[in-house]
């Protein structure tokens, strides 16, 4: 199926009343969970993941994609109005977005965010459509190469997303072990079940995602004394031609930047949005206005974030590599419906792949329509005290976790996951590597074992038998060395700064 034929078929599928309804429900649910303070797309999609179990492959992927996009739009509302970014990539938006809210221009900030997001998402969509060609190159890759690519993606995510390489790798290993529990697909023996029959079928990814990502977020928020409730004024939701003209450059630059960053597996979304912010400040005739409510400071990062959200699908759909926690959860939604994103998806289930791609465009339009005129409706949800939302969400999560396999054991696993996630956050562990290995772990092991079989038990051949593998492993070594080097340099700089700052204190003490 060629690109245009596939895309037309995708639009034909999505434009049925039933699928449009799923897209609409997904957008609304995504917006709704996105406006819960502190909830980013990852938490929102993990909470709503059980919904994917009860729909077919196409409706569930449509709905999950809409939820993801909707939660990104919803997250903007809390970033701008409450100064509470749902995830690290939204911090750049808060810098000028919240400053605009304080000046009574919150509505204007939300409007330019929606327009920028729509334009960025639409242009990135065109790029995504053409980038699907990459999957045809990836079809020829064997288990050795796929194993190497997955390791490469993991190293990128661990290296770029977190502060500590060691903690990132530990989190990745923990995710692998959760994936090992249950029946071994090759030999049929049970592994790591400690004789517990409930574990024989393995630990569901859905349950762990709800617990580690969603529940831990709620528990962390509940444990705070200061809670965020919005009682301010949004201001008029309109922008002038002058605002649009002022922001147009930021929007188009943000689109290009976001699309480029999204192509990289493990793309650091925060770096992309801050780079956009930095560029806009540099190019501005009034850099002194940044941080005090410059409209370009909202338009640039928001557009970048949404364009990146769209182009993040490229490594997922063409290589099967999720580039962020949210993408890992979406990959989980695919796998529980028996689909495996990657080069084979376009060959085996082109209708699902193209319907998903078309649904992204439809969701982008829907959200643009829903977010501008209905912004006051979404803001009204912010006026519900957060503790009510958190309490209700706990009840919803209990039903969601139970419904996965009709088992209270799963609810217990969700709570264990939630506590573990909370503990990991407190200890400074990044959760993205854990989410990634949870989903990719089984695939990683499958490719490893197939590759060993091909190599007749020669483990050295696994590393060096093909040129692609040699290049990828070489890149992995370089990346790891760079990460170790930068970590050492950063810690020595920090130690130097501390010694420097301690000197004047000592001098003062000496004078006394």
């Amino acid at each position, binding site marked *: 199926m060629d690109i245009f034929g596939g895309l037309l078929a995708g639009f034909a599928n999505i434009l049925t009343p039933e699928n449009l309804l799923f897209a609409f429900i997904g957008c609304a649910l995504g917006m709704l969970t996105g406006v819960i303070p502190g909830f980013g797309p990852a938490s929102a999609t993990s909470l709503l993941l059980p919904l994917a179990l009860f729909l077919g492959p196409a409706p569930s992927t449509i709905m999950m994609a809409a939820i993801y996009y909707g939660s990104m739009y919803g997250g903007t509302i809390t970033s701008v109005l409450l100064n509470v970014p749902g995830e690290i990539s939204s911090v750049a938006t808060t810098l000028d977005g919240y400053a605009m809210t304080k000046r009574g221009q919150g509505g204007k900030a939300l409007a330019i965010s929606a327009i920028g997001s729509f334009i960025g998402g639409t242009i990135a969509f065109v790029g995504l459509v053409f980038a699907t060609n990459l999957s045809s190159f990836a079809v020829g890759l064997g288990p050795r190469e796929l194993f190497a690519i997955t390791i490469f993606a993991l190293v990128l995510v661990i290296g770029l997303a977190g502060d500590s390489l*060691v903690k990132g790798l530990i989190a990745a290993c923990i995710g692998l072990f959760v994936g090992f529990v249950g029946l071994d697909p090759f030999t049929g023996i049970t592994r790591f079940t400690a004789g517990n029959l409930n574990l024989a079928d393995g630990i569901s990814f859905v349950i762990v995602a709800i617990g580690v990502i969603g529940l831990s977020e709620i528990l962390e928020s509940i444990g705070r004394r200061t809670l965020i409730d919005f009682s301010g004024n949004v201001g008029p939701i309109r922008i002038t031609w002058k605002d649009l003209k002022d922001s147009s450059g930021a929007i188009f630059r943000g689109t290009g930047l976001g699309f480029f960053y999204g192509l990289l597996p493990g793309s650091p979304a925060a*770096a992309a949005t801050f780079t956009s912010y930095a560029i806009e400040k540099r190019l501005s005739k009034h850099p002194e206005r940044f941080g005090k409510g410059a409209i370009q400071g909202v338009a640039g990062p928001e557009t970048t974030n949404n364009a990146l959200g769209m182009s993040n699908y490229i490594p997922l759909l063409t290589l099967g590599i999720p580039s962020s926690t949210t993408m890992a959860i979406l990959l989980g939604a695919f796998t529980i419906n028996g689909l495996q994103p990657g080069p084979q998806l376009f060959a085996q289930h082109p209708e699902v792949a193209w319907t998903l791609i078309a649904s992204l465009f439809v969701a982008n339009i829907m959200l643009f329509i829903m977010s501008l005129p209905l912004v006051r409706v979404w803001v009204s949800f912010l006026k519900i005290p957060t503790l009510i939302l958190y309490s209700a969400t706990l009840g919803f999560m209990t039903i969601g976790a139970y419904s996965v396999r009709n088992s209270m054991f799963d609810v217990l696993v969700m709570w264990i996951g939630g506590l573990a996630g909370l503990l990991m956050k407190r200890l400074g562990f990044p959760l993205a590597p854990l989410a990634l290995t949870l989903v990719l772990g089984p695939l990683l092991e499958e490719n490893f074992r197939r590759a060993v079989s091909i190599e007749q038990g020669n483990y050295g051949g696994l590393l060096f038998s093909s040129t692609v593998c040699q290049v990828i492993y070489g890149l992995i070594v370089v990346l790891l060395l760079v990460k170790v080097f930068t970590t050492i340099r950063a810690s020595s700089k920090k130690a130097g700064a501390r010694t420097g700052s301690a000197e004047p204190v000592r001098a003062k003490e000496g004078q006394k």
Partner: protein
Amino acid sequence: MSFLDRVASARRTRAAGEWIAATVNRVTTRFPWLIAERIAAIVILLLALYFLSVAVSYGLNDGAQAAPGTFPALAAAALVVLSVIWLFTAKPLKKDVEDETPGEEVLDHYAHQEGAAQEELAEAAAHDADATGALESDSHPIRLIFVLVWSAVALPFVEVIGMIPLLFVYLTGLFVVVAQLKWWKVMIFTALTLLLAAYGAYVGGIYLPDPIGIGPFLYGIVARIFGW
């Protein structure tokens, strides 16, 4: 002042908090090496060793193929090495370090990201510290402990009284104690919401445990009202 706030500020609670803080202080003074990160590293190391021994028991070599234990053993070995590295490189948690500025952690994070200019990073860090630092410093552990204990006490009764009655009790408790809502409003709102949720689950084909037969009972009432 809510019930949980009163508990948090009660003399006995404060005394218990002070006792815990004093005990932790005594232990860490006596064993300065023992900090939270190192304790976590030791726990992970022990788990990794256990996983390694279990993985080895599944077999490591199966002729020309990888045995069921090969890949888990490799992962466990990596985890052993990583936890040992962490054990020896662990630093006190930022909260424990008094001379640390609130935004430093955030600045460190951004400093690792490529591309963005340093001044924007510093600005962002200061801004983020304003936004989140204040939230993190004033934790409400009593509220969190209540949610954990209440969940641990209530949720095991699902198989005894059924999902919907249990969620009614569980959510009522959370709404009244945590969200500080009026009990009679909560009961009406929760009951109606759960009835809708139960209907939704029934339509969606989700089985919810109902050992006391509340579903047929409610259906009987609705059927009588509408003459079904």
